[in-house]
Protein backbone atom coordinates (compact mmCIF):
# COMPACT_ATOMS: atom_id res chain seq x y z
CA UNK A 1 0.00 0.00 0.00
CA UNK A 2 1.24 3.51 -0.77
CA UNK A 3 2.34 5.40 2.31
CA UNK A 4 4.17 8.64 3.01
CA UNK A 5 6.68 6.71 5.18
CA UNK A 6 9.13 4.22 3.64
CA UNK A 7 11.74 2.53 5.87
CA UNK A 8 14.35 2.76 3.12
CA UNK A 9 13.99 6.56 3.13
CA UNK A 10 15.88 6.65 6.44
CA UNK A 11 19.04 5.80 4.48
CA UNK A 12 18.37 8.78 2.20
CA UNK A 13 18.55 11.30 5.04
CA UNK A 14 21.90 12.61 3.77
CA UNK A 15 20.23 13.62 0.50
CA UNK A 16 18.89 16.61 2.45
CA UNK A 17 22.41 17.99 2.11
CA UNK A 18 21.99 18.35 -1.65
CA UNK A 19 19.68 21.36 -1.40
CA UNK A 20 21.99 23.29 0.90
CA UNK A 21 25.28 21.56 1.75
CA UNK A 22 26.41 24.30 4.11
CA UNK A 23 23.36 24.11 6.34
CA UNK A 24 23.46 20.31 6.21
CA UNK A 25 27.11 20.25 7.32
CA UNK A 26 26.35 22.64 10.17
CA UNK A 27 23.39 20.57 11.25
CA UNK A 28 25.43 17.35 11.10
CA UNK A 29 28.33 18.81 13.07
CA UNK A 30 25.89 20.01 15.74
CA UNK A 31 23.99 16.70 15.73
CA UNK A 32 27.15 14.62 16.14
CA UNK A 33 28.42 16.92 18.91
CA UNK A 34 25.10 16.58 20.76
CA UNK A 35 25.27 12.78 20.72
CA UNK A 36 28.97 12.50 21.64
CA UNK A 37 29.83 11.47 25.18
CA UNK A 38 29.77 14.45 27.54
CA UNK A 39 28.26 14.91 30.97
CA UNK A 40 25.82 12.23 29.77
CA UNK A 41 27.00 8.97 28.20
CA UNK A 42 26.17 8.08 24.60
CA UNK A 43 23.95 5.33 25.98
CA UNK A 44 21.96 7.77 28.12
CA UNK A 45 21.59 10.19 25.21
CA UNK A 46 20.29 7.42 22.98
CA UNK A 47 17.63 6.58 25.59
CA UNK A 48 16.58 10.25 25.78
CA UNK A 49 16.45 10.35 21.97
CA UNK A 50 14.27 7.24 21.95
CA UNK A 51 11.83 8.85 24.37
CA UNK A 52 11.72 12.07 22.35
CA UNK A 53 11.27 10.06 19.13
CA UNK A 54 8.09 8.63 20.65
CA UNK A 55 6.94 12.02 21.88
CA UNK A 56 7.30 13.52 18.40
CA UNK A 57 6.12 10.22 16.87
CA UNK A 58 8.77 10.11 14.17
CA UNK A 59 8.94 6.57 12.74
CA UNK A 60 12.41 7.18 11.32
CA UNK A 61 13.71 8.29 14.72
CA UNK A 62 12.01 5.37 16.49
CA UNK A 63 13.69 2.94 14.07
CA UNK A 64 17.09 4.63 14.33
CA UNK A 65 17.11 5.05 18.10
CA UNK A 66 15.73 1.61 18.90
CA UNK A 67 18.74 0.32 17.00
CA UNK A 68 21.05 2.87 18.64
CA UNK A 69 19.86 1.95 22.14
CA UNK A 70 20.43 -1.77 21.55
CA UNK A 71 23.79 -0.97 20.01
CA UNK A 72 24.75 1.09 23.06
CA UNK A 73 23.99 -1.87 25.34
CA UNK A 74 20.57 -0.85 26.62
CA UNK A 75 17.94 -3.49 27.18
CA UNK A 76 14.23 -3.69 26.47
CA UNK A 77 13.29 -2.90 30.08
CA UNK A 78 15.24 0.37 29.99
CA UNK A 79 13.90 1.26 26.55
CA UNK A 80 10.31 0.56 27.64
CA UNK A 81 10.77 2.82 30.67
CA UNK A 82 12.08 5.55 28.37
CA UNK A 83 8.94 5.26 26.21
CA UNK A 84 6.79 5.48 29.37
CA UNK A 85 8.57 8.72 30.27
CA UNK A 86 7.52 10.12 26.87
CA UNK A 87 4.02 8.77 27.40
CA UNK A 88 3.76 10.29 30.88
CA UNK A 89 4.91 13.69 29.68
CA UNK A 90 2.55 13.66 26.69
CA UNK A 91 -0.33 12.40 28.86
CA UNK A 92 0.53 14.85 31.60
CA UNK A 93 0.73 17.67 29.09
CA UNK A 94 -2.82 16.88 27.96
CA UNK A 95 -4.09 16.50 31.48
CA UNK A 96 -2.54 19.68 32.81
CA UNK A 97 -4.46 21.62 30.15
CA UNK A 98 -7.53 20.40 31.95
CA UNK A 99 -6.84 23.29 34.29
CA UNK A 100 -7.63 25.63 31.39
CA UNK A 101 -10.83 23.71 30.77
CA UNK A 102 -11.74 24.13 34.42
CA UNK A 103 -10.90 27.85 34.32
CA UNK A 104 -13.13 28.42 31.29
CA UNK A 105 -15.92 26.24 32.68
CA UNK A 106 -15.81 28.03 36.02
CA UNK A 107 -15.93 31.42 34.34
CA UNK A 108 -18.92 30.48 32.23
CA UNK A 109 -20.84 28.63 34.87
CA UNK A 110 -23.17 30.02 37.50
Amino acid at each position, binding site marked *: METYYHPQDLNKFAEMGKGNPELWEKFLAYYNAVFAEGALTE*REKALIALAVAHAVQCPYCIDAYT*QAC*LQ*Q*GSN*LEEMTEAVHVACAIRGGAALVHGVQMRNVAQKLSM
Partner: protein
Amino acid sequence: MGQSLKAQGRPLASAAEQLRILSTPNGFPPFERTMAEANLFPLHATGITVLQINVGKLCNQTCAHCHVDAGPDRKEIMSRETAELCIRALAQTDIPVVDITGGAPELNPHFRWLVGQARALGRHVIDRCNLTVLLLPSQADLAEFLANHKVEVIASLPYFRAAQTDAQRGLGVFDKSIEALRKLNAFGYGKEGTGLLLNLVYNPVGAFLPPKQEAIEKQFKRELERQFGVVFNRLYTITNMPISRFLEFLLASGNYEGYMQRLANAFNPAAAAAVMCRYTLSVGWDGTLYDCDFNQMLELPLGNGAPQHIRDFDPAKLHTRRIVTANHCYGCTAGAGSSCSGATAKTSP
Protein backbone atom coordinates in the same frame (compact mmCIF):
# COMPACT_ATOMS: atom_id res chain seq x y z
CA MET B 1 18.48 -28.07 24.12
CA GLY B 2 18.35 -27.52 20.37
CA GLN B 3 20.11 -29.49 17.68
CA SER B 4 22.85 -28.25 15.38
CA LEU B 5 21.94 -27.17 11.85
CA LYS B 6 23.80 -30.26 10.68
CA ALA B 7 21.70 -32.61 12.82
CA GLN B 8 18.54 -30.90 11.57
CA GLY B 9 19.67 -31.34 7.97
CA ARG B 10 19.31 -27.58 7.35
CA PRO B 11 20.72 -26.18 4.07
CA LEU B 12 22.87 -23.68 6.00
CA ALA B 13 24.79 -26.56 7.60
CA SER B 14 26.65 -26.50 4.29
CA ALA B 15 29.53 -24.04 4.03
CA ALA B 16 28.98 -23.87 0.26
CA GLU B 17 25.37 -22.74 0.77
CA GLN B 18 26.48 -20.05 3.24
CA LEU B 19 29.08 -18.79 0.79
CA ARG B 20 26.52 -18.80 -2.02
CA ILE B 21 24.19 -16.55 -0.01
CA LEU B 22 27.02 -14.27 1.13
CA SER B 23 28.39 -13.85 -2.38
CA THR B 24 25.01 -12.94 -3.89
CA PRO B 25 24.81 -9.15 -4.44
CA ASN B 26 22.34 -7.73 -1.93
CA GLY B 27 22.74 -4.00 -1.53
CA PHE B 28 26.36 -3.99 -0.34
CA PRO B 29 29.61 -3.88 -2.33
CA PRO B 30 31.88 -6.94 -2.49
CA PHE B 31 34.31 -6.95 0.47
CA GLU B 32 37.32 -7.17 -1.80
CA ARG B 33 36.31 -3.99 -3.65
CA THR B 34 35.87 -2.13 -0.36
CA MET B 35 39.29 -3.35 0.78
CA ALA B 36 40.84 -2.29 -2.53
CA GLU B 37 39.39 1.21 -2.12
CA ALA B 38 41.09 1.33 1.28
CA ASN B 39 44.37 0.13 -0.30
CA LEU B 40 44.17 -3.07 1.73
CA PHE B 41 43.67 -5.63 -1.01
CA PRO B 42 45.16 -8.14 -1.25
CA LEU B 43 45.54 -8.49 2.49
CA HIS B 44 48.69 -10.14 3.82
CA ALA B 45 49.66 -11.60 7.17
CA THR B 46 52.21 -9.70 9.23
CA GLY B 47 53.48 -12.71 11.21
CA ILE B 48 52.03 -15.22 13.65
CA THR B 49 51.63 -14.24 17.28
CA VAL B 50 48.57 -16.40 17.99
CA LEU B 51 48.15 -20.09 17.22
CA GLN B 52 44.43 -20.64 17.52
CA ILE B 53 43.58 -24.31 17.82
CA ASN B 54 39.97 -25.37 17.37
CA VAL B 55 39.85 -28.77 19.06
CA GLY B 56 36.38 -29.63 17.82
CA LYS B 57 32.70 -28.88 17.46
CA LEU B 58 31.48 -30.84 20.49
CA CYS B 59 29.76 -28.56 23.00
CA ASN B 60 27.35 -28.88 25.92
CA GLN B 61 25.37 -25.87 24.61
CA THR B 62 23.64 -25.05 21.32
CA CYS B 63 23.80 -21.25 21.20
CA ALA B 64 21.53 -19.48 18.71
CA HIS B 65 24.34 -17.43 17.17
CA CYS B 66 27.12 -20.07 17.12
CA HIS B 67 29.38 -19.68 14.08
CA VAL B 68 30.70 -23.21 14.59
CA ASP B 69 27.25 -24.87 14.61
CA ALA B 70 28.58 -26.65 17.68
CA GLY B 71 26.52 -28.79 20.03
CA PRO B 72 26.22 -32.09 21.85
CA ASP B 73 25.41 -33.84 18.56
CA ARG B 74 28.67 -32.77 16.89
CA LYS B 75 31.35 -35.44 17.10
CA GLU B 76 34.19 -33.83 15.13
CA ILE B 77 37.05 -33.46 17.62
CA MET B 78 40.83 -33.19 17.34
CA SER B 79 42.78 -36.43 17.77
CA ARG B 80 45.86 -36.80 19.95
CA GLU B 81 47.97 -37.19 16.79
CA THR B 82 46.80 -33.83 15.43
CA ALA B 83 47.25 -32.19 18.83
CA GLU B 84 50.83 -33.52 18.83
CA LEU B 85 51.40 -31.96 15.40
CA CYS B 86 50.21 -28.62 16.82
CA ILE B 87 52.70 -28.86 19.69
CA ARG B 88 55.47 -29.89 17.29
CA ALA B 89 54.73 -26.83 15.14
CA LEU B 90 54.62 -24.61 18.21
CA ALA B 91 58.00 -25.88 19.38
CA GLN B 92 59.56 -24.83 16.04
CA THR B 93 58.54 -21.22 16.63
CA ASP B 94 58.37 -18.52 19.26
CA ILE B 95 54.62 -17.95 18.78
CA PRO B 96 53.77 -16.53 22.20
CA VAL B 97 50.04 -17.27 22.47
CA VAL B 98 48.07 -20.50 22.12
CA ASP B 99 44.34 -19.84 21.91
CA ILE B 100 42.27 -23.01 22.38
CA THR B 101 38.68 -22.92 21.18
CA GLY B 102 35.83 -25.19 20.11
CA GLY B 103 32.87 -26.13 20.67
CA ALA B 104 33.62 -26.46 24.33
CA PRO B 105 37.36 -27.17 24.05
CA GLU B 106 37.54 -28.67 27.54
CA LEU B 107 35.37 -31.59 26.39
CA ASN B 108 38.11 -32.79 24.06
CA PRO B 109 39.90 -35.61 25.95
CA HIS B 110 43.27 -34.20 24.88
CA PHE B 111 42.57 -30.62 26.04
CA ARG B 112 44.51 -30.87 29.28
CA TRP B 113 47.45 -32.56 27.55
CA LEU B 114 47.52 -29.75 24.99
CA VAL B 115 47.42 -27.08 27.71
CA GLY B 116 50.18 -28.81 29.66
CA GLN B 117 52.45 -29.10 26.62
CA ALA B 118 51.93 -25.51 25.51
CA ARG B 119 52.60 -24.24 29.04
CA ALA B 120 55.72 -26.43 29.27
CA LEU B 121 56.95 -24.64 26.15
CA GLY B 122 56.46 -21.38 28.03
CA ARG B 123 53.55 -20.13 25.94
CA HIS B 124 50.61 -18.10 27.18
CA VAL B 125 47.48 -20.26 26.89
CA ILE B 126 43.90 -19.04 26.43
CA ASP B 127 40.86 -21.24 27.04
CA ARG B 128 37.72 -19.99 25.27
CA CYS B 129 35.24 -21.21 27.81
CA ASN B 130 31.43 -21.26 27.67
CA LEU B 131 31.35 -21.20 31.52
CA THR B 132 28.63 -23.85 31.97
CA VAL B 133 31.18 -26.55 31.13
CA LEU B 134 32.78 -25.80 34.52
CA LEU B 135 29.66 -27.17 36.23
CA LEU B 136 29.60 -30.53 34.44
CA PRO B 137 30.33 -33.41 36.86
CA SER B 138 33.13 -34.59 34.55
CA GLN B 139 34.77 -31.14 34.79
CA ALA B 140 34.52 -30.63 38.56
CA ASP B 141 38.30 -30.01 38.78
CA LEU B 142 38.54 -27.88 35.61
CA ALA B 143 38.72 -24.48 37.34
CA GLU B 144 41.53 -25.75 39.56
CA PHE B 145 43.36 -27.21 36.55
CA LEU B 146 43.11 -23.91 34.66
CA ALA B 147 44.29 -21.92 37.68
CA ASN B 148 47.22 -24.28 38.34
CA HIS B 149 48.37 -23.89 34.74
CA LYS B 150 47.80 -20.11 34.77
CA VAL B 151 45.52 -20.38 31.75
CA GLU B 152 43.75 -17.17 30.70
CA VAL B 153 40.01 -17.76 30.58
CA ILE B 154 37.99 -15.90 27.94
CA ALA B 155 34.37 -16.60 28.69
CA SER B 156 31.21 -15.82 26.77
CA LEU B 157 28.58 -13.73 28.53
CA PRO B 158 26.52 -11.65 26.12
CA TYR B 159 24.68 -9.65 28.79
CA PHE B 160 24.44 -9.11 32.54
CA ARG B 161 20.81 -10.20 32.63
CA ALA B 162 19.23 -13.63 32.27
CA ALA B 163 16.63 -12.78 29.59
CA GLN B 164 19.14 -11.66 26.97
CA THR B 165 21.79 -14.26 27.82
CA ASP B 166 19.33 -17.14 27.82
CA ALA B 167 17.75 -15.96 24.55
CA GLN B 168 21.12 -16.43 22.87
CA ARG B 169 22.73 -19.27 24.81
CA GLY B 170 19.83 -21.36 26.11
CA LEU B 171 17.40 -21.42 29.01
CA GLY B 172 19.13 -21.40 32.38
CA VAL B 173 22.58 -20.63 30.94
CA PHE B 174 22.81 -17.23 32.66
CA ASP B 175 22.34 -18.60 36.19
CA LYS B 176 24.86 -21.37 35.51
CA SER B 177 27.30 -18.85 34.01
CA ILE B 178 27.14 -16.74 37.17
CA GLU B 179 27.76 -19.83 39.29
CA ALA B 180 30.76 -20.70 37.10
CA LEU B 181 32.11 -17.13 37.31
CA ARG B 182 31.87 -17.27 41.10
CA LYS B 183 33.78 -20.54 41.00
CA LEU B 184 36.52 -18.94 38.88
CA ASN B 185 36.60 -15.92 41.21
CA ALA B 186 37.03 -18.30 44.16
CA PHE B 187 40.23 -19.59 42.55
CA GLY B 188 41.45 -16.01 42.13
CA TYR B 189 40.39 -15.49 38.53
CA GLY B 190 39.62 -11.87 37.67
CA LYS B 191 41.16 -10.57 40.89
CA GLU B 192 44.00 -8.09 41.15
CA GLY B 193 47.42 -9.52 41.86
CA THR B 194 46.65 -13.19 41.14
CA GLY B 195 47.86 -13.17 37.53
CA LEU B 196 44.77 -15.23 36.68
CA LEU B 197 43.05 -13.44 33.81
CA LEU B 198 39.31 -13.73 33.40
CA ASN B 199 38.06 -11.83 30.37
CA LEU B 200 34.47 -11.81 29.18
CA VAL B 201 33.07 -11.65 25.68
CA TYR B 202 30.05 -9.52 24.82
CA ASN B 203 28.33 -10.09 21.54
CA PRO B 204 25.02 -8.49 20.56
CA VAL B 205 21.85 -10.48 21.20
CA GLY B 206 20.44 -9.61 17.80
CA ALA B 207 21.10 -7.98 14.44
CA PHE B 208 22.98 -4.91 15.62
CA LEU B 209 26.58 -3.88 16.19
CA PRO B 210 28.27 -3.97 19.60
CA PRO B 211 28.65 -0.82 21.72
CA LYS B 212 31.95 0.86 22.49
CA GLN B 213 34.01 -1.70 24.37
CA GLU B 214 35.04 0.64 27.21
CA ALA B 215 31.46 1.81 27.77
CA ILE B 216 29.85 -1.63 27.96
CA GLU B 217 32.76 -2.94 30.06
CA LYS B 218 31.98 -0.31 32.69
CA GLN B 219 28.32 -1.34 32.67
CA PHE B 220 29.18 -5.06 32.96
CA LYS B 221 31.64 -4.44 35.82
CA ARG B 222 29.15 -2.35 37.75
CA GLU B 223 26.20 -4.71 37.23
CA LEU B 224 27.99 -8.04 37.74
CA GLU B 225 29.63 -6.84 40.95
CA ARG B 226 26.50 -5.13 42.29
CA GLN B 227 24.06 -7.91 41.47
CA PHE B 228 26.21 -11.02 41.81
CA GLY B 229 29.51 -10.09 43.44
CA VAL B 230 31.34 -11.26 40.29
CA VAL B 231 34.58 -9.59 39.13
CA PHE B 232 36.56 -9.91 35.93
CA ASN B 233 39.43 -8.21 34.08
CA ARG B 234 38.38 -7.05 30.60
CA LEU B 235 35.29 -7.23 28.43
CA TYR B 236 35.79 -7.87 24.74
CA THR B 237 33.12 -6.84 22.25
CA ILE B 238 32.70 -9.15 19.27
CA THR B 239 30.46 -8.52 16.27
CA ASN B 240 28.22 -11.41 15.29
CA MET B 241 29.54 -12.96 12.10
CA PRO B 242 26.88 -13.46 9.40
CA ILE B 243 27.54 -17.18 9.02
CA SER B 244 26.08 -20.47 10.25
CA ARG B 245 23.37 -20.15 12.94
CA PHE B 246 23.50 -16.36 13.07
CA LEU B 247 23.04 -16.29 9.29
CA GLU B 248 20.06 -18.61 9.75
CA PHE B 249 18.62 -16.15 12.29
CA LEU B 250 19.25 -13.18 9.99
CA LEU B 251 17.48 -14.83 7.08
CA ALA B 252 14.57 -16.19 9.12
CA SER B 253 13.96 -12.83 10.83
CA GLY B 254 14.22 -10.76 7.63
CA ASN B 255 17.32 -8.98 8.93
CA TYR B 256 19.95 -10.31 6.54
CA GLU B 257 19.99 -7.50 3.99
CA GLY B 258 19.83 -4.75 6.62
CA TYR B 259 22.55 -6.34 8.75
CA MET B 260 24.94 -6.78 5.84
CA GLN B 261 24.36 -3.20 4.74
CA ARG B 262 24.93 -2.02 8.31
CA LEU B 263 28.25 -3.91 8.44
CA ALA B 264 29.33 -2.60 5.04
CA ASN B 265 28.28 1.00 5.83
CA ALA B 266 30.30 0.81 9.05
CA PHE B 267 33.46 -0.41 7.26
CA ASN B 268 36.43 1.10 9.07
CA PRO B 269 39.81 1.04 7.30
CA ALA B 270 41.64 1.25 10.66
CA ALA B 271 39.79 -1.87 11.85
CA ALA B 272 40.41 -3.58 8.52
CA ALA B 273 44.15 -2.96 8.78
CA ALA B 274 44.18 -4.51 12.27
CA VAL B 275 42.16 -7.68 11.63
CA MET B 276 43.22 -10.72 13.64
CA CYS B 277 43.87 -12.96 10.62
CA ARG B 278 47.01 -10.92 9.97
CA TYR B 279 48.66 -12.26 13.13
CA THR B 280 46.72 -15.50 13.77
CA LEU B 281 47.06 -19.00 12.37
CA SER B 282 43.95 -21.10 12.87
CA VAL B 283 44.08 -24.91 13.04
CA GLY B 284 40.96 -26.99 12.49
CA TRP B 285 40.04 -30.15 14.40
CA ASP B 286 41.47 -32.27 11.56
CA GLY B 287 44.69 -30.23 11.28
CA THR B 288 43.67 -28.10 8.29
CA LEU B 289 45.07 -24.56 8.41
CA TYR B 290 42.98 -21.41 8.04
CA ASP B 291 43.39 -17.65 8.39
CA CYS B 292 40.74 -17.52 11.13
CA ASP B 293 38.07 -19.55 12.90
CA PHE B 294 35.36 -18.04 10.66
CA ASN B 295 37.12 -19.10 7.46
CA GLN B 296 37.49 -22.49 9.13
CA MET B 297 33.73 -22.84 9.52
CA LEU B 298 33.21 -21.70 5.92
CA GLU B 299 35.76 -24.33 4.83
CA LEU B 300 38.02 -21.68 3.28
CA PRO B 301 41.52 -23.05 3.99
CA LEU B 302 44.76 -21.15 3.45
CA GLY B 303 45.29 -20.42 -0.22
CA ASN B 304 47.83 -18.94 -2.58
CA GLY B 305 50.44 -21.66 -2.09
CA ALA B 306 50.53 -21.64 1.72
CA PRO B 307 50.73 -25.01 3.51
CA GLN B 308 47.24 -26.38 4.14
CA HIS B 309 47.83 -28.79 7.04
CA ILE B 310 49.59 -28.51 10.38
CA ARG B 311 51.81 -31.47 9.41
CA ASP B 312 53.27 -29.21 6.68
CA PHE B 313 53.75 -26.24 9.03
CA ASP B 314 56.41 -23.94 7.62
CA PRO B 315 56.72 -20.54 9.32
CA ALA B 316 58.54 -19.01 6.35
CA LYS B 317 55.60 -19.75 4.04
CA LEU B 318 53.01 -18.60 6.58
CA HIS B 319 54.28 -15.33 8.04
CA THR B 320 53.44 -13.15 5.06
CA ARG B 321 50.82 -15.34 3.41
CA ARG B 322 47.98 -13.76 1.46
CA ILE B 323 44.77 -13.86 3.51
CA VAL B 324 41.65 -15.49 2.08
CA THR B 325 38.74 -13.03 2.29
CA ALA B 326 35.05 -12.98 1.37
CA ASN B 327 31.97 -10.93 2.24
CA HIS B 328 31.62 -12.36 5.77
CA CYS B 329 34.85 -10.44 6.56
CA TYR B 330 32.73 -7.28 6.91
CA GLY B 331 31.96 -8.71 10.37
CA CYS B 332 35.52 -7.97 11.53
CA THR B 333 35.89 -4.55 9.91
CA ALA B 334 32.71 -2.76 11.02
CA GLY B 335 32.74 0.10 13.53
CA ALA B 336 35.49 -0.31 16.09
CA GLY B 337 36.35 -3.68 14.52
CA SER B 338 36.02 -7.14 15.96
CA SER B 339 38.44 -9.92 16.81
CA CYS B 340 38.80 -12.73 19.32
CA SER B 341 40.36 -10.08 21.56
CA GLY B 342 37.56 -7.58 21.03
CA ALA B 343 37.62 -4.23 19.27
CA THR B 344 40.62 -3.56 17.01
CA ALA B 345 40.33 0.17 16.32
CA LYS B 346 40.31 3.05 18.78
CA THR B 347 37.68 4.98 16.88
CA SER B 348 34.70 4.20 14.68
CA PRO B 349 34.20 6.03 11.39
